[in-house]
């Protein structure tokens, strides 16, 4: 897989330090699942975190903390990471990484797509993040999505298919990072549907229906 669009340094720093909230972090982790180049840089940033931790000023602890920890330990062997993964048909078909399927794996046979109109479907990921919304999108092959813009940041990670817009070509593994009100018009490749993860700022909860309707592109 040839990845040409990588994480920005600011985004990677925010993710490595822990500052980035859950919704956005899913997109970063999805790209990291596909990109050893960004993973190597992420590992270096965790070394920076480790260096800062190692050099930080120690604070005295209450006397019983270690006791408390010991009381919570299980005695068995350390075996985290040996769990057997479910065989998820749709994940295999679209090459969707576990960090995303973990949010959606209730039905291993099919995804609960909901139509957004214009042939586009979505599945929203349930997160604890109130500031960002993460959703899986399916956009039909050859589709030209109308010109639109988003408020704030938008991250898109492609799993299968791809699209082209004013900023370049995006294929599997690539991440697109858009800021502010930049307009774009993605054109999905002819050969196959585009399956991607899109993370956007959580929509403001307007009570006014007219304002709601004015939200750009198919309610996203």
């Amino acid at each position, binding site marked *: *897989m040839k990845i040409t669009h990588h994480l920005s*340094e*600011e985004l990677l*720093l925010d993710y490595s*330090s*822990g*500052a980035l*909230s*859950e919704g956005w972090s*899913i997109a*970063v982790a*999805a790209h990291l*699942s*596909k*990109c*050893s*180049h960004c*993973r190597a*840089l992420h*590992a*270096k940033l*965790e*070394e*920076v*975190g*480790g*260096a*800062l*931790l*190692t*050099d*930080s*000023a*120690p*604070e*005295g*602890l209450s006397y019983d*903390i*270690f006791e*408390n*920890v*010991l009381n*919570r*330990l*299980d*005695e068995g*062997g*350390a075996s*985290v*990471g040996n769990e057997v*993964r479910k065989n998820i048909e749709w*994940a*295999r078909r679209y090459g*969707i*990484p*576990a*960090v995303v399927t*973990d949010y959606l794996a209730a039905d291993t046979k099919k995804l609960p797509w909901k139509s957004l109109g214009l042939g586009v479907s979505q599945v929203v990921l349930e997160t*604890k993040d109130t500031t960002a919304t993460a959703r899986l999108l399916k956009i039909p092959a050859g589709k030209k999505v109308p010109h639109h813009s988003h408020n704030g940041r938008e991250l898109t990670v492609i799993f299968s298919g791809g699209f082209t817009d004013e900023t370049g070509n995006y294929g599997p*593994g690539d991440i697109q990072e858009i800021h502010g009100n930049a307009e774009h018009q993605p054109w999905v490749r002819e050969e196959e549907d585009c399956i991607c993860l899109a993370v956007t700022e959580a929509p403001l909860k307007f009570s006014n229906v007219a304002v709601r309707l004015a939200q750009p592109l198919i309610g996203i």
Partner: protein
Amino acid sequence: MSVDVDTISERQNSVSKRSQVGKPPFSVTVSKEGLMEVGLKVESVYRDEQSRWIVAVAESRDKKAFKQLFNHFAPRIKGFCQNNGSTSDRAEEVVQEAFVNIWRKANLFDPKKASAGAWIFAIARNARIDLIRKENRPEADTTDPFFEQNEPESPLAVLEAERKSKLLRDFVRDLPAEQQQVLKLAFFEEKPHSEVAEELGIPLGTVKSRIRLAFKRIRSEFGEI
């Protein structure tokens, strides 16, 4: 670099090989000039005692090693959390959660991929997100069938990485103050770079360029990564 490293590569991988800690067969070190020295011991990989403590916890559920890890890192994790404005009680909750996870996940620690400090930092960071922010921490899962594996790494590259990681620790201490300040606000206070700009009262562009400069140094110091 073309050197026969087959024998070393056997020592790669697998947690089960960790039993060789302390009596490794030989060493390969790459000197600053890029010259390679093949000696009698691989000490590089397991060099520091903190890594050995984690490995001992993973392999023999060694409570003495666990206590040593605790004595070394717990007060630092607490200090680290309190930078973020957490109360002493909250910071101690994070310490406890972190150490329960260190015990549970010790088998995932790979001293060839991360230093002990970096691995424990990541666990403490995630405990902080879990307990204080009450969010999940999405991470790339290496056991995932759709995880794109790295190109198989040569053992030499691995030893290089370990050497680099130590250099990196010194390097952070030597960064120009303003770059260090941005990194510290990010890591200690978990501030996104946009808030770092607000806090310092400087334009976002300035923060971004300081981040870029710091990254550029990391890259030039440790090769293209």
